[in-house]
Structure formats: structure tokens, C-alpha cells
């Protein structure tokens, strides 16, 4: 492929001039350096990144270290409300945040399919930089690899994150007690529908924008204000809110009840779900957090989230002592399960109760 090196982008995003990434850009030579400089260094402003050493050397922070890593392979790369770059920052930052940590540093590894337009990479880089700034993290080291056409799908990003556990944070399943409340920071289902509508060309759902955003500001505020009254947190990404409450029940050995009536579902998300036979409780979110708080602190948690701009934050459920036990320790089908059997349940507005389960895989649209 003919690469015009003379006309490299000089400023701003979206100036790829039609250039495409070639295998040579991943060979570790001059072109690789150029790619890193032109696309990434320009956007990621960090004094730790600038020297481009083999490792970033960063000063120690206070408290325990929180570490996490995540791979991002979303298709399409751009969707309403976000893109793979923003997702790669928010996803990792949010994993640190729900561990009770203040995110500090990110690493970013790019696996690029040969032929990807420079312009795409620039847009992604700029978006990552903006999201990192929003989240208060620095991208301090990274890597780029270029693979042959078909070796990956356009662009994969792997980010790792380092954060420092906040003083006063005491978070974990063992701290959850019956009576604790579930507080949700906002409406569910937007990211799942936004990505689906782009992927499948569903025009009617195109008004839905992904909620992709860092939640570290919210979690930090909750911990600073409420301290150990915050018991457990998770971001309901893949598998949605339902999956997260199933995890909560499993990890704590307690029953978890959600109240359907108070779970915010935007009307356009609800409409798309109805048409496609999807359940909003199982759709991915990328900018929400579910927090288990002591009963007495629940309203305060909602108020804090609302003050921080989360207008739809609400108490959506509670933790209860397990009631259901396996009769005699054996099911009629010989399936021996230890008692008690904690579960996650949804109370419907009609007073009915529905048992929530993890999905076997991705949620599939139903025809019937």
C-alpha cells in the first residue's frame, strides 16, 4: 500500500488524509514511532508517557493498590454516545471505581487490523484522551501491534488500570447484611440498545445513546461521604442489572429483591426492547453503578448521586435473609444443592415475583 509520509497529519483529529495503517506501522521501526507520536502522544498528555520508556515510572500513591485489565472488541467502533476508545477508558476506570479505588493510571494496548484508516485511529485516540481527562486518569504507557487483514476486526484495545483504594472504603460481599438497600445511579439499557441499533441498522432505535461514562467521581463521592455504609458496588455492564444482582446473591449468600416499578428504563429503550423481544434488565450499561448501602444511608446515597447529576438515581431494591431452602437437601431431580439457596428476584408492579437468572450467553432477540 502506498503511504504518503510527507503529508502526515499536523494538527487536530480527523486529518488522516486517507492514509491507512500498514503492517510496517507495527514493525517497531520508524513508522511505528511515527504512528505513536502522531496518533497517541499528541492526545495523551502525561509526563510519565512522554519519555516512551519500556515501563512507565510513577510515584507511589496512598493506600492499597487496585489493579484491573479489560479487552475491548466492540463492533461497530463508533456508536451513538461513544466509541471503542471511550469504552476502553470507562470500562477499566469503572472496574477500579467499584472496588472503592480512585483510578490513577491506565495502560493501553492497540491491536490494529492492517488497512485501518489513520483517521479512525485518531478519532479513537482523541476520544480516549477526553474520557481519561473526564475520569481523572493518565494513560502512562501503551503498545501498538498491527496484524494482517482478517487477523482481528478493525481495532481491539486492551487497557489496564491502577488505582488507589480510598481511605474509609470497606467494600466486599462479606459486608452486606439483610436490610441493606440497592441504589442504582441511573436508567438501564442504553448502551446495549445503542450498540445493537448501529450493528443491525435498526433505524427506530437510533435515538438511544450509550451511557458510556466514568463513574469514579460518583463512587468516590459516595465513599467519602458515607464511608463504610457503602458495602458493595458493581457496574452493570455485560449481562446488565439482572446479572449483577445474581452475582450479589451468589457472593453474599443472601436473597436480593429488585422492585421493577422503580427501575428507570428510558422510553426509547423500552420500546426497542419490546419490538426486539429483549429484556432491559439484561442489557449492557457502561456508565452506571449499583451500590449496596446500609439502610439508614440509602436516601443520602440517592441524594448524593442526584447532586452529582444523576437525576434518575433511585433505591431499586433490598437484600434479605434467604428463605428458600432445598427441601431435604435433594431436589426431585437428584440435583443436590447445599442449603440455603440464595437467589435474585424481581417484584413486579402487580405484586408478582420473578426469579432472575444469569443468561447462558448473549441475549438473543426472540421471534416468538
Amino acid at each position: 500500500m502506498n503511504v504518503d509520509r510527507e503529508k502526515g497529519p499536523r494538527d487536530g483529529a480527523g486529518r488522516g488524509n486517507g492514509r491507512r495503517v500498514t503492517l510496517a506501522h507495527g514493525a517497531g521501526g520508524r513508522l511505528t514511532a511515527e504512528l505513536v507520536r502522531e496518533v497517541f502522544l499528541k492526545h495523551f498528555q502525561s509526563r510519565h508517557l512522554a519519555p516512551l520508556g519500556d515501563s512507565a515510572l510513577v510515584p507511589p500513591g496512598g493506600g492499597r493498590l487496585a489493579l484491573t485489565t479489560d479487552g475491548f472488541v466492540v463492533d461497530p467502533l463508533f456508536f451513538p454516545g461513544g466509541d471503542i476508545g471511550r469504552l476502553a477508558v470507562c470500562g477499566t476506570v469503572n472496574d477500579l471505581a467499584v472496588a472503592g479505588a480512585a483510578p490513577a493510571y491506565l495502560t493501553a494496548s492497540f491491536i490494529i487490523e492492517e488497512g485501518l484508516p489513520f483517521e479512525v485511529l485518531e478519532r479513537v485516540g482523541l476520544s480516549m484522551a477526553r474520557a481519561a481527562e473526564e475520569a481523572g486518569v493518565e494513560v502512562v504507557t501503551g503498545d501498538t501491534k498491527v496484524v494482517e487483514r482478517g487477523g482481528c476486526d478493525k481495532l481491539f484495545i486492551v487497557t489496564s488500570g491502577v488505582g488507589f483504594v480510598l481511605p474509609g472504603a470497606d467494600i466486599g460481599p462479606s459486608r452486606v447484611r439483610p436490610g441493606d438497600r440497592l441504589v442504582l445511579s441511573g436508567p438501564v439499557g442504553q448502551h446495549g440498545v445503542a450498540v445493537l441499533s448501529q450493528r443491525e441498522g435498526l433505524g427506530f432505535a437510533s435515538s438511544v445513546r450509550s451511557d458510556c461514562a466514568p463513574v469514579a467521581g460518583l463512587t468516590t463521592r459516595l465513599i467519602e461521604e458515607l464511608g463504610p455504609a457503602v458495602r458493595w458496588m458493581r457496574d452493570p455492564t455485560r449481562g446488565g442489572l439482572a446479572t449483577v444482582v445474581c452475582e450479589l446473591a451468589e457472593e453474599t449468600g443472601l436473597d436480593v429483591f429488585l422492585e421493577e416499578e422503580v427501575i428507570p428504563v428510558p422510553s426509547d429503550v423500552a420500546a426497542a426492547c419490546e419490538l426486539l423481544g429483549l429484556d432491559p434488565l439484561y442489557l449492557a450499561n457502561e456508565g452506571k453503578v449499583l451500590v449496596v448501602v446500609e439502610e439508614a444511608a440509602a436516601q443520602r446515597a440517592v441524594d448524593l448521586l442526584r447532586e452529582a447529576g444523576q437525576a434518575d438515581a433511585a433505591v431499586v431494591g433490598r437484600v434479605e435473609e434467604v428463605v428458600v431452602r432445598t427441601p431435604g437437601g435433594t431436589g426431585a431431580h437428584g440435583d443436590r444443592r447445599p442449603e440455603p439457596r440464595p437467589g435474585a428476584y424481581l417484584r413486579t408492579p402487580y405484586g408478582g415475583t420473578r426469579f432472575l437468572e444469569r443468561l447462558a450467553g448473549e441475549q438473543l432477540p426472540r421471534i416468538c
Partner: protein
Amino acid sequence: MSRAGDFRDPALVKALVAAVRRDVEALGRPVTLMEVCGTHTVAVSRSGLRGLLHGFVDLRSGPGCPVCVTSETDLDRMVALALAPGTVVVTFGDMVRVPGTVGTLEEARAAGADVRVVYSAEGAVRAAAEEPERLFVFLGVGFETTQPGVALALREADRLGLENFCILSAHKTLPQALRALIEPAAGGDARGGDAPGGGRADRPRLDGFILPGHVSAVIGRRAYDFMADEYGLPGAVAGFEPVDILVAVRELVRSVRAGRARVLNLYSRVVREEGNPRARAIVDRFFEPCPAEWRGLGTIPASGLKLRPEWERFDASVRLRAALEDGLARARARAQRTGHERLRRACRCGDVLRGELLPPECPLFGRSCTPVRPVGPCMVSTEGSCAAYYRYEGRGDRV
């Protein structure tokens, strides 16, 4: 309040549940109803109605999820087509995870097959028009509701002169299946006596049917009159909101109390007596009735649709006959070798659907038939009787 809102009004739902309970108490025994349609099943489950009615109305899920009743033979055919060189199999999403004897379409995709999910048959035609060098096979699965869409897609493929588009028709039609379901229980001594086929006198038979709103929009209310006229069973065509479903339950319970069998249309905002003749006409143009194999129920005469001979250029079972025969022979050999054939014969889903057997009484339940490795349709569907029983066991007091 929005229109859907009225049909979801919690106060109305509670009042209806109370009314149903009073009627059942007056009757003096619990009532067993079948909701025939998969969408009803999901609505019942999502709204928690099954739990609200627990103890006085037993809602059973019928054979109305087209994916769940697709036979393993048809699934083996689909996998064979997916693995044939040069083909692209295009399907509705929920087909990809249902196992035949040789695995699922999802597994075929992992093995290199090109399996794509669409939201309409028209999407499959569009894809075929874009890639003329590959043969696109659309999996025609569904009841009367989806068939007109498939017929329209065929009309479009015909108009475009597409040579690389065909369908594998595994379409099902409902009335004959309902008849087959009623027949063994009702055939001997109507509802109550010892029916042939292992039925028991102490088991509640089906007392009536909640009939599918969308299918009925096409075939019309009249299509079900035979249930009342020939078998003395009441039915109610219902919409899909909680209030719709509960009104149907209330009317059916009242019919049982009054000893009166009628088929009511409680979804008149969508369903007419005669249905939608135009939709049926476009389906008739391309398809004709044929016997169909239903998972768990066996072969039922005139309960399926195949392409008419004049449209055989769109018929995958003609165009890809060799690949299908090869694939099926391999599947059969494998089923024999692994003992799967024996399992399939031992499956009692038909009896479970008819209300003659409780799921744990099936010899396969929880042993060789589980939600992860289902044999019959009642375990394939997450809300099928067997899958629900497997999951909810021990939670009866909470759900």
C-alpha cells in the same frame, strides 16, 4: 396514561387476580389453562402472573414457541446447510442456540460456518442481493405471524430475480397442533376419565386455552371454533399485556364454572373473526400445507408449510438436496452411536404439554435432559414447563 399503561395498571391487575380467585374458590378446584403462545409465556413470566395465580390457576406453557418446537431433524438440516461450502445461513436470533443431534448453529459458526442473525426475512434478501457469489439460505421458522413476512421476502427475491436466495421451510401452523394436543386427552373419555397414553384420572386436564393474539390476527378467531364445538373446551384470544392475559383467565374460569365452551375474542383491538385474508393470500401464493415434525409431539398432519412446486428454485430442500441428505445421514449415525435416538424416543414432553405428566415424572428430567442439554421443547424454552420446573423447584413460596 398511555394505551399500554391501561393494560398494565397494577390496581386493575390486582382486582382481576382477586376476581379469578373468587371464581376458582366457587368452582371448588384449581383450574389448568394453557397459554399457547411463546409471547404470552414470556409476558406471564415477566409480570410475575404465574406466581400471582399460584395455587388456584395453573398456567402451562404450550407448544407456541416456534423455536422450541422445531424438530431435531430440522435443526440437523439447518446445521448441514450451514456447513455446506459456499452457503450463508440466515436466521432469527433465538435459533442459533437450540441443539439438534449434532449440535447448534452457534457451534457450526464456531467451526467456520457463515451463520448470520437478522430481524426479518427481508434482511436476508438484502444480504443476498449484496453478495451474489454466495448462496443465502433463510431458515423459515415461525407460525402464522411470521409467514407473511417470509412470503413478502420471497416476492421481493422473485422481483429482483435473485438466484442466490432460498429458504428452508420449517414453518408450523397452529390449529392442527392444538387439535393433536387435545385429541389424546379428550379422545376417550373427554376431560377427566382415564385417557389413552398414560393419562391419569387424578390429574387435572387442561380446562381451556389462552389463544395467541398475533397468530389470531392472521387466522381469525373462527379458526379455533373446533375446540369448543368438537371437544367442549373454552378458548380466549388474548393480547399480551398483563390485563389482557388476566381478563382471558377470568373469562376462561367463568366458562369452566358455567360449563360453557366458547371461543372468545378478547383482543378485538387487533383480531377479527376472519383474520387477515390478505396476509393469508400472500402465504398461499408461495406455500402449501404439509405434515410437520414437532419437537416432542411427533409428526402432525397438515401442521407445516412447504414451498409450492412452482417456487422450487427458492426451496433449499431441493437446491441443496445432496448436502441435506449427507448431513442428515451423519446426524442419524451419530444419534444411533451416542444413544441420542433412544433419548428422543423416551422424551415425554407431549404428555407434559397435555397435562398428563408432571415434569419430574419424565424419566429424562434433570438427568439426560437439562436446560443446558435439553431433549424436548419444554426444556428448550426457558419458560417451558420442564425448564421452569427445574429452575423454580423449591422456590414455590416465593415465585
